[in-house]
């Protein structure tokens, strides 16, 4: 099962290595990992999508909590979160194909970020599943390159994963 875990850490050198090392040596599988600073510059957030049983998830949470630089660990409930990933996708595109691709892009609420004579680059932020579907729609045109950020997620409603609560 996939789990989305939001981890607040001290913004120290080496923290990411500790977190990644923990996953590697304990055999936890990471699907994606995204890091960024929070509103407090001393704190970073690592959003991890991990795969495993409930037992594994419990161990992941507990072992993460044991790392001294980890301030808070919260697994987000799938029905109660907004999760997004950003994709940049470059497809072969002759001038003739442009209108077709642009309309697919509009349907998917994507944005054209670059156009050249024979290629087009689109950016979309959406759930991982939606991005996968979109990728399939574009595949027939010839995908040249894909860059994805890894998932970030936030809880719905007023609840927040923050050091203030």
């Amino acid at each position, binding site marked *: 099962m996939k789990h989305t875990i939001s981890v607040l850490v*001290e913004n120290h050198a080496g923290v990411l290595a500790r977190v990644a*090392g923990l996953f590697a040596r304990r055999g936890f599988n990471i699907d994606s990992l995204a890091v960024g600073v929070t509103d407090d510059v001393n704190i970073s957030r690592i959003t991890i999508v991990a795969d495993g049983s409930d037992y594994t998830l419990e161990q992941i949470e*507990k072992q993460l909590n*044991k790392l*001294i630089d*980890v301030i808070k660990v919260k697994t987000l409930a799938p029905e109660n979160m907004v999760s997004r990933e950003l994709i940049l996708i470059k497809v072969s595109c002759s001038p003739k194909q442009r209108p077709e691709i642009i309309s697919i892009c509009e349907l998917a609420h994507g944005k054209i970020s670059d156009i050249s004579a024979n290629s087009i680059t689109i950016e979309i932020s959406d759930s991982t599943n939606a991005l996968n579907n979109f990728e399939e729609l574009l595949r027939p045109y010839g995908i040249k390159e894909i860059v994805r950020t890894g998932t970030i997620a936030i809880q719905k409603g007023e609840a927040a994963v923050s050091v203030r609560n």
Partner: protein
Amino acid sequence: MQRMTVAKAMTECLKAEGITDIFGYPGAAICPFYDELYKSGINHILVRHEVNAGHSASGYARITGKPAVCVATSGPGALNLITAIATAYMDSVPMIIITGQVNSDQIGRDVFQEADITGSAEPFVKHSYLLKRPEDTAEVFKKAFYIAGTGRRGPVLIDVPCDVQKAEIDFEYPESVDIRSYRPSSKGNGYQIKRAAVTILEAKKPLIIAGGGLFSGNAAELMRELSEKLDIPVISTLMGLGAMPTDNERYFGMLGMHGCESAKCAVNNCDTLILLGARLSDRTSAPIMLKKGLTVIHIDIDPAEIGKSVAANIPIVGDISIVLGQLLEQLNNTVSENAVPKHDEWKAMLSQSRVDKGIKQVEKGFVNPKWFIRELNNYLPNRSIVVADVGENQFWTALNIELKNGRFLTSGGMGTMGYSLPAAIGAKTAEPNAEVIAVCGDGSFQMEMPELATCVQHNIAVKVIVMRNKYLGMVREFQTNHYGNRLYAVSLDGSPSYTKIADSYGIENMLVDSKESAKEGIKRLTESNKPFLLEVAVPEMLETIL
């Protein structure tokens, strides 16, 4: 606030933490610190290999209950410590490891004796610091000691570049620390304590498993009180050995792959299992077949241990001495004087499961190690500290040693050969008045032999018993039982005479090969107030469980 070098500040930090002895081995990158150690009044014990600085600090810390310090230079020095760090980590031993590092502007360039020690040791430390900013010195040391010595104890590494050691700072040691991301819990959850109390009172066949956490948490006495008050039988893990005096009528031995029948019978038949500071590793739980409907109460300071090996019905996270205090109070409030449970039938059943195969006669010219350890018991004063190495010798000792308020130390989680002598050196340094004995095999002894010099140089009167069977016995036994007796790479042919080795260090010694000579040897060993080595001629092909 005082102006001084970081190197001096480091010694001031150690003194502020009450450190009087440290174990180490110098090299260029740690020389600024050594130059200050020299002026500091701290007693530095020069080991003969860095790994033993780590093991000695481990033995020291396990006796004092407080973080002990070891130190090494950059590169090979630091790397030589890793096995000791991992050994301490597996057994939750509080330790501060100080390593020298190359100059900070050279880090990452593969300069002479550079090793990424914080990176290499990461899987085996509770935490680590690379001290890059001189002004962080005091805070880093304060935090390191706090982290190592609280919560689930463990090793904390501080890596200090050589140029940082020489830098000048304004120094003042902080009085307190607060780490927002590290707040180990102390009190147990009140609701779970109540549930535990009710469950324990209703149990027909309760059982306590005493783990090493009882020593880290200084709670062995409270455990004994709990056992006594409610007549609960106790068994022990390898790490918990000695928490219950071995001659207590409620004590039913050690659990584990090499444990005893009565302990196995107890776990397999109890209806309520009270796990106290025990993580039930694979080796410990090897013989267990937990019954359906069994209630498990698991008390541990580390939430990650609860539910890891066995599912817990009543999980209680907290400092074990505080939690046991809460539990005893709750039980006092709940139970009325005349309704105190008695478990005579349950104890009788367990008593019947005690098996003693007796002591087999061995060939002439040899001593039965089981007999030997039991004989040794007669000579050991109260509060003795026995350190067992790894191998058959470890279990001959663990299963037969009598512990009367004494301590038994061994490398449990890592099973690191060569632990006993350096750990004994640490224990003896911490507790100079205690009788401290290292029991090792001839294989393990050859890994730690150089530390005899440390004993002589620093006048550390550790007693060493070498169980000489001319084999890596435990592996030999494994090959016998599981690999068609194809003995390969387990003979220790070519080994020296251990008494002659002792002679060349000027250490008193004796070779014993009969009951009579063994008695004489034990007498001389325990009467001596200097280092002493006893070589015991043990038959070549004995089993672990005798």
